[in-house]
Every structure is written in C-alpha cells, then in structure tokens.
C-alpha cells in the first residue's frame, strides 16, 4: 500500500516537473538572428557607427536577437538581394534605392508590403516617396535623405571676378557666362568624371527633369507613350555637350571616376562639381564652410517640372522570405525612433527620412538650403527608368557623349531602341509599369 502511495507521489512530482519544464521552455525565447544587408557608407561617412549604435540598442531591448549587418558594395546592392531571394535565402532586411529598384523586386515577389507590419500612423512618417508605393501598398521605409545639385567654390568665383548677381547662376545663360569668366581666369569651371559611369545617373536626373511636364513622363518614355528620340527628351544631352564643347568641363572627364572628379573640386582645382547633400560636411571641412555654396542646376528646360528641385531618399525593405518579419519591422521602427533619427543629424549631419524630425535643428546653412530643395523636390528620374535602359542610355551614354562617340540625337535614338528592346524582352513586366504609372500623380 505504502509503495502505491509512493508511486503516486512520484508520478505527481514527475508530472509537476514536466509541466514546469515546459513552462520554462516556453518562457525562454528562441534565439533569433536578424540579417540586414545595407549600403550607404560610400555617400554618408560614419553611417556604420550610427547603425552599430542602433543595433546595440535593439539587441539590448531584444536580448534573444542578434542583428548581423553586412555592408554591401554598390554593385552588390543590384545583384545580391534578387539572387538570394531567388535562391530562397534572402536577408530579413535589405537596403534599397527608390522607385524601379524596389518595384521590380516587389513585382517578382521579393519585397514585403510594410503596411501589414508597421502601424499606419507610424509608416506615414517614414518618408519613402510615392515611387515606393504600388497598388495602395508601401514597400519601402525611408532612412535618410538629401538634396541633389551642385557645389561651387566661392573663393574661386571671387578670384575670377564672377559678379555677385551671378553667384550662383540661376539660368542657363547665366551659367555659361559664369563658366566663361572662370575659364578666362584659368580656372576649370566644372569637374566631372565618367570613367565609372555613375555620373550618368546624376546627369539624367538633374537635367532631363527640366524637360518633363509630369513625374509620369519618364515612365511613359519607357512604356512607349512618349519617345526618347523626340528632341525634347534628348535636349539635356545637347546642353551637357554645350558645356563640354565650350571647354567648361575638365579635359580628363573620360579618364576620371566620379569621386576623383569631386576631388578636383575639394582641392580647389575646379570651381563647380555635381554632388549629393551628404558630402557637404566633408567638403566644408576640406575647403571651409565660408568658401562653399550650393546651387541647383541652372534652368534651361521648358517642362512644367523645370523649376522643381531634386532630392533623394534612401530606404529599407523587408523580405517576404524573412522568418522574422515582425522583428524586422521592429528594427525599422527603431531606426525611426526620435533618438535614432535625431542621432542621424547630431552624429553625421544627415537628414533623416522622417517627417517628425524637426528641420529647425539643421544649423548648417548649406544643408539647410538643400533641405529647402527637399521640400520643393520632385522625383529622381533615374529611379523611374529600368536598368536595361538606364544603364546603357545614361551610364554608358555619358561616356559616349564626352568621348565623342555619339551625338545627343544618336543618344536619343539609342535610348529609344533600348526602350523598345526592353519592352520586347520583358512583356510580363510591362503591365506592372502601367499599373505603377496609374498610381502616380503630380
């Protein structure tokens, strides 16, 4: 009898321990690794430190989570994510440029709409621009943003005798006048470099916009509703060629890379260069804040968007293949928490892509000016053109123009041929473009 009682006690204890064990096991959270492939250090020095701090905070708040951040080189941003997604092993979070760069991935099913993971009242603050939206869903959250235009060297302007009224030039004729004054003074007016082709994207985005009436126009050019070989849409090459033919651009444009050409400006060897806003703090350090000014591309265009400014928003996406989409969304929310977006400005002098950021904090007059551009900005043309067209027409096209291989008209014809070829090669994607076009309004 006693042994039966003992057996009962033993069984009860065993059940109790088992239940306790199960409760303990369920309480102990699963160890999770969140993978984030990112880019940005190239254009925003110090971003690694900001991201490390953000990860440290996230890991402290989520003790069971480890965030593995991998910095990609520029080319890898193109290829690694779609390749990994196709193979079924994408990262949880991925850096993404805007527009077509995120849309084509989304159309292939590689991008998760954020609406389902981030509360609407928060998502609306994460500036991503309409180019990140498709059929009423937002696929990307902004990270940081910047104005896009030109830097000019005030000291060289003064040295050459550029009048105050032309500092900086606002119209095309004024720009030509300023360039001539600088050239006559023995100063290289503009420094550009096409060897790595990157400047092609910047040039098409800063110049073509002036000939457009609507943000839908570049997409219309690609889907065949407008034609690239219409003189209006290759006029921007005519203007760039005019600067080149008149000797206003450094003679080694074809053998220098984009950032080598910017170095000419940094060293005081050229009076103007094309630039993104994130480079301003470094330039101020190199040349002195009082010696630098920022300017928009002087106006030559006849389009309704000619007076618009250009800005760019970098962003982040979540992969549908992620097993931890909730945590990935949490991480994006942390990136947009007040302390973190303020740290972007305080630590790096970068403007966060969050409309809750108080722009009055921007005490640098130059960056403040580019902030005004952001507020008056329109789309970035390069984000609306499929790579199959953009890569050859703009990236390679700028080399062909400066090397004398193709005239502006021939570049227009080339872009038209590429657009036709792209439509023929991607008939399954075309409807998506039409749908995307439908969703965009000026």
């Amino acid at each position, binding site marked *: 009898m006693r042994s039966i009682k003992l057996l009962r006690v033993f069984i009860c204890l065993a059940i109790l321990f088992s239940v306790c064990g199960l409760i303990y096991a369920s309480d102990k959270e699963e160890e999770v690794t969140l993978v984030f492939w990112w880019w940005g250090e190239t254009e925003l020095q110090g971003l690694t430190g900001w991201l490390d701090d953000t990860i440290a905070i996230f890991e402290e708040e989520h003790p069971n989570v480890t965030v593995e951040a991998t910095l990609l080189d520029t080319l890898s941003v193109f*290829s690694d994510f*779609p390749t990994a997604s196709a193979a079924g092993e994408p990262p949880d979070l991925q850096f993404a440029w805007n527009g077509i760069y995120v849309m084509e991935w989304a159309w292939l099913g590689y991008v998760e709409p954020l609406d389902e993971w981030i509360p609407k009242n928060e998502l609306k603050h994460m500036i991503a621009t309409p180019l990140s939206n498709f059929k009423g869903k937002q696929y990307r959250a902004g990270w940081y943003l910047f104005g896009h235009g030109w830097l000019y060297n005030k000291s060289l302007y003064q040295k050459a005798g550029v009048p105050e009224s032309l500092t900086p030039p606002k119209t095309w004729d004024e720009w030509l006048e300023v360039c001539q004054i600088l050239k006559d003074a023995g100063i290289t007016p503009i420094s550009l470099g096409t*060897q790595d082709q990157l400047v092609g994207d910047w040039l098409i985005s800063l110049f073509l916009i002036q000939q457009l009436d609507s943000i839908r126009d570049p997409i219309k050019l690609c889907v065949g509703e407008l034609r690239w070989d219409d003189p209006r849409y290759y006029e921007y090459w005519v203007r760039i060629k005019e600067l080149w033919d008149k000797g206003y651009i450094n003679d080694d444009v*074809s*053998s220098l890379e984009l950032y080598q050409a910017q170095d000419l400006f940094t060293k005081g060897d050229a009076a103007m260069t094309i630039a993104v806003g994130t480079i301003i703090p470094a330039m101020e350090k190199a040349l002195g804040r009082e010696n630098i000014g920022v300017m928009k591309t002087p106006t030559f265009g006849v389009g309704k968007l000619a007076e618009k400014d250009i800005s760019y928003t970098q962003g982040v996406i979540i992969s549908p293949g992620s097993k931890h989409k909730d945590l990935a969304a949490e991480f994006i929310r942390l990136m947009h928490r007040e302390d973190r977006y303020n740290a972007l400005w305080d630590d790096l002098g970068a403007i966060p892509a969050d409309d809750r950021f108080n722009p009055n904090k921007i005490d640098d007059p130059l960056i403040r000016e580019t902030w005004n551009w952001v507020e008056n900005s329109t789309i970035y043309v390069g984000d609306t053109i499929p790579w199959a067209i953009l890569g050859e027409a703009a990236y390679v096209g700028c080399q062909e123009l400066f090397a004398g*291989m193709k005239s502006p008209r021939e570049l227009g014809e080339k872009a038209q041929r590429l657009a036709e*070829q792209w439509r023929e090669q991607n008939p399954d994607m075309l409807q998506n473009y039409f749908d995307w076009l439908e969703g965009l309004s000026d």
Partner: protein
Amino acid sequence: MILRTKKFTPYIYLFPAILILGLIYGYSLVRVFDFSTRRIRGITGVFIGLDNYKFVISDPVFRKAVLNNINLFVLIPILVFLAIIISYLLFEQLRGWKVYRGVIFMPYILPIPVVGVIFGYMFTLHGVVNSFLKLVKLDFLAIDWLGSPKFALWTLMIIILWKELGFGIILFLARLMSLEKEIFESAEIDGAGWWGKLFYVTIPQMRTIIEFFAIITVINMLSWVFAYSYTVTLGGPGDATMVMELFIFNKLGRSQLPMPGIASAASVFLFSGTAVLIFFLFRIRKEIGQEET
C-alpha cells in the same frame, strides 16, 4: 594466365568519376542551355524558344564585345614572341638573370584587380604615364589612354601584356632548362649564331610548350579577360573595351532585374566559340604531329 575482363568492366570503374564530372560540369552546362531558352524570373521561367539568342545577336554591345575579343588575339603572337626572346635571354644566364626572372614574373602573381586599379590611375589623362612622357618631351604621346575609344583597347592590351608575359617566360624557361646542353654546344660547333640557335635549335625543341601556351592564351583572350576589362575600364568608354564575359556579367549582376536568360544565351555563344577554336587548334596540332612522324 591471361586475365579476361568483360567489355563493360572498365566503364564500371569509370562510372563514379563520370558521375562526379557530369554533376559538376554537365549539369551546369545543361542548365545554361535550358536557361537560354527561357525568360527567367527567379530560378525558372517561361519557354521562349530562341528569342534570347535573337536578342543577343541583335545587341550591338554584344557584337562589339565579340569584335573586341577577336581584336585581343593580336596579343597572342606578341606574347609568344616576347616570351621566347626573353626566356632565351634569361637562359643565356646574363649577369643578374635570377633577379630579372623574379622581376619579370612578379606581375603575374599580382591580383588583377590591384593591377587594374593601379594602371587605371597611371593611365589617366594627367596621370603618371603622361606626366613622364611630357617630362621627356614626348608630349605627342601623352594621349587619353583609357578615356579615348581609339586607344582604350590598346591600352588594355598593354596591361594584359605586362601582366601575362611572366607566365609565358617562366613556362618557356622551365622547358629550356630541361634541354640537353650538348645540343646547343653541337650547334655552336657547327657554327650556329645566336639567332641560328634560337630558330633552328631552341624553337623546334620547344614546339609543344609553345603550342600549349598559345592555346592557353587563345582561351584567355576569349574567356579570361573579364577582370581586366571590369577593373580598368568597366568596358568603356562606351563599349570600346567591352568583352563577352563582361557583357554576360552585366546582364546578370549589374541589373536590379537580372536577365539570366540573355546572359545564358551569350554564354552559349562564348562556350561554343571557345570549343570550336580549341577543337581546330588541337586538330592543327595533331596534323603537325602526324607530319613530323
């Protein structure tokens, strides 16, 4: 005792090796052919017949790439000739020849991206090369080496020549070192001069290794020049230094919407071209061998 084996026995022993080779090379080759007939989205796609081949053939950039690859063949006789001469000079054991051998071979062991970046800087319009040419009053030679479509491919050839020559020299020198010294001594006794020994003794003795080097170089010029074109010029200016491998790479890796179908079709062309060329080269070699015997 005569050991008799059944006819299929050797194939049983060979089967594991054939299986492994088939999996490594055969499968990927089949997939490339398969991809080339599809509009790939992700890892598969709809069958579109020969459309990708049509796209590739009608693409002027691809045609230019093929032409550039063929133009690079100019390097083959230059490489062979220089490698023979220099290796022969080293074989003669000039004073300090071991140092020269090390210096000449050094470019070959440098990574191509490093070479590409350094030469990219050196050959800019206001770079070291042109500064030197101006210093020695050769201003007319100070051209835009990499920025001009007229000169970019030739400049690329100079870089390839500088980098690849070392391999040929070491290869030939190793062969020369293995030759019997008596042959050269006999030639000298018979009155052969430096050139005579080179043409009538050395080169015939090195025929096989020269053929090997030439074949390797042909393959290199067709399908091993990507790294040069990519790191030095990105195929530019325009398409002046575009090669087939870079074209394939651009369709795959330099696009937010990769085009594996088109890249595969271009790969099939490259593979076929290389295979045909190698077949003919081996055939020529066989014919030469038969003539000799």
